[in-house]
């Protein structure tokens, strides 16, 4: 009996020792706790001669990707700084439930750490997702930057033609030479100004993607220039081969009006 109690005590001690080692990490002075990493996700750097930008790509791979010869559908995600985590979380859940197939996600980002990452994101999306220059939007952004204490950055808009060329001539070849991608199942996902860019692509180079996931696009940009692009496309085309999902929120009219007022008053 006494021997059993000793064994039990020893087991309890060992449990506490192991438990302490495994589950409660004791940090040394000046040591930071480990950071969370995203499962099955890697960062690739891609320099663009066309845009003159080092892009930081977030590439999320399916389960068992390394053991598979499958060519996977790919979703290119705009605004990954803000949206990649949500896209990855939702697509992982839907794929694991076999509601959608497993996919490769590619976030097209601008890199940086901390506050610099935010600035790179804000400047990059303004330049790349807007099809023509909008000086009012640039001025509004300049004032917003000044309010953050930043006055030495180059704020430009109207870079969508170059960004589209980058995707076609530099990004696609890079992805298709490095990953198992089904080049006949490419989706573009863009929200807000990202949706503006998505519709710009749809009316200028629709074959670039097979599917367009367009959320709350900035239809108001330059007094509705997207509607003009669509009209121009319609004068020369009867065919538009694409699958498009487009949505907005019931309460968004208010937001769009406020954005426009802010830019006009800048």
């Amino acid at each position: 009996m006494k021997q059993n109690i000793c064994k039990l005590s020893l087991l309890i001690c060992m449990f506490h020792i192991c438990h302490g080692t495994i589950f409660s990490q004791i940090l040394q002075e000046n040591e930071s706790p480990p950071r969370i990493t995203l499962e099955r996700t890697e960062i690739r750097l891609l320099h663009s001669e066309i845009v003159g930008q080092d892009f930081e790509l977030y590439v999320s791979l399916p389960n068992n990707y390394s053991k598979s010869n499958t060519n996977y559908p790919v979703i290119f995600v705009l605004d990954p700084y803000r949206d990649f985590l949500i896209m990855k979380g939702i697509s992982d859940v839907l794929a694991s439930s076999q509601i959608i197939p497993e996919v490769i996600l590619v976030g097209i980002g601008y890199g940086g750490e901390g506050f610099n990452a935010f600035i790179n994101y804000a400047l990059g999306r303004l330049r790349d997702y807007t099809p023509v220059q909008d000086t009012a939007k640039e001025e509004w952004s300049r004032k917003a930057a000044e309010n953050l204490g930043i006055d030495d950055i180059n704020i430009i808009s109207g870079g969508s033609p170059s960004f589209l060329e980058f995707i076609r001539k530099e990004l696609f070849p890079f992805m298709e030479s490095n990953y198992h991608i089904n080049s006949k199942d490419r989706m573009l996902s863009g929200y807000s100004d990202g949706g503006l860019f998505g519709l710009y692509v749809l009316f200028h180079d629709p074959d670039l993607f097979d599917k367009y996931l367009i959320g709350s696009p900035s239809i108001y940009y330059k007094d509705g220039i997207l509607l003009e692009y669509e009209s121009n496309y319609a004068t020369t085309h009867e065919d538009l081969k694409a699958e498009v999902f487009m949505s907005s929120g019931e309460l968004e009219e208010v937001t769009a009006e406020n954005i426009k007022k802010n830019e006009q008053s800048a």
Partner: protein
Amino acid sequence: MSNQLNSRNYENLKLNTIIFENESHETCYPVFINRGLRELNYDDE
């Protein structure tokens, strides 16, 4: 935009548009992704 697109009757365009109730620009993204991924024809592949 959706009205204009629908009025064209483009060949080979599969267009699905939705307005989410009680969602704003700031709240809409997760709903949009969840619904959009499912709607984009994956169900018949």
